[in-house]
């Protein structure tokens, strides 16, 4: 299928899309915000392939979808520009080179940590990742409750605490916890008025 955008809209080549999104992938360091910034720079500022409204639309739809949001957004941008082939070019471009670098790095990491110096460095890094994971949860919670009415904040905190306890103390299967949080969230956020509501 071809792009749903008007015929006069830019139609970058598939190889170009692959290369640009490959560059976005391998230059993304430190999480989603850097990937988003790079996508915005490449697709809006440098090339004007998309306008701000279309870019925001791909952002909003990808946030409603499971999996890696940035990868889903790459699929959507590729589809808008060149149809299904564009979706494949952008997503494979974002994933393939960065995955190869990550795999090479993993092999290197495993080899390095086999010698005593590498193992000692890893002994310091492992507890740091535990602290890092708590920090990720803390920052996500802060974002989750920012600017929300008190009832919605309470609902968020109940779900955060409840899912933690279900998995840690009661050893409920994580997939079941996900389903439960979806159902409880649907009830609590609708009641608390914290949902963003119909578009």
């Amino acid at each position, binding site marked *: 299928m071809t792009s749903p955008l008007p015929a006069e809209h830019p139609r970058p080549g598939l190889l170009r899309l692959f290369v640009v999104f490959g560059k976005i992938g391998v230059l993304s360091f430190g999480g989603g915000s850097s990937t988003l910034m790079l996508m915005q720079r490449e697709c809006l500022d440098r090339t004007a392939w998309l306008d701000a409204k279309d870019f925001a639309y791909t952002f909003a739809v990808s946030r409603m979808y499971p999996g890696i949001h940035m990868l889903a957004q790459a699929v959507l941008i590729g589809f808008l520009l060149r149809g299904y082939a564009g979706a494949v070019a952008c997503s494979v471009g974002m994933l393939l080179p960065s995955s190869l670098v990550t795999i090479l790095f993993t092999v290197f990491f495993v080899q390095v940590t086999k010698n005593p110096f590498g193992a000692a460095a890893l002994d310091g890094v492992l507890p740091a990742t535990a602290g890092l*994971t708590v920090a990720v949860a803390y920052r996500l919670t802060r974002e989750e409750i920012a600017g929300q009415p008190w009832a919605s904040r309470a609902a968020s905190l109940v779900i955060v605490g409840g899912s933690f306890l279900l998995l840690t103390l009661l050893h409920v299967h994580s997939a079941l916890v996900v389903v439960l949080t979806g159902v409880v*969230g649907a009830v609590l956020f609708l009641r608390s008025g914290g949902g963003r509501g*119909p578009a």
Partner: protein
Amino acid sequence: MDLLSLFLVCVKVSFLSFGGTAPLPLLHDELGRRRALVPDADFASAIAIGRIAPGPNGLFVLPIGYFVAGVPGALVAAAALWTVAMPVLILLKVHHWLSRFAVVDAGVRGIQAGAIGLTLAVAWSIMAATTPTPFHLAIAVATFVLAAFTSVDVVLILAGAALLGLGTLLRGHLG
């Protein structure tokens, strides 16, 4: 675990989680706690690799695949991430219709909030496995404070933790 099973597990946890870091607790539950294929220390290594190596947030699934089945496992994990991403085009078709229902939005918010609690549960487990001494606990707490309340680069924080680990080895040799 064979590669097809690994692929299916990665697809399942990705479809059940929203955002790059969200599959971590589900993978930990599935491959760590239930099947005992990946110990907590390897999960911690995967998180570190995911933060240091480039790519969209969420590529820590690749080192986890590597720890299960080597390079083919990592490639299978990458293929699973791609397989999950492509059907977003279906959502593109039904998005306008779905967005009329506030309950969908509220449910997704619930899953996102739940993912935070599940992430905390993984942190709890990794903390228990990687902090055998007060020294290790101090590294974990210091990392939390730096990562949560300052803008210090994560790679710098991890490099500092690695130096502290090396320092204990050298102190042991010198002492």
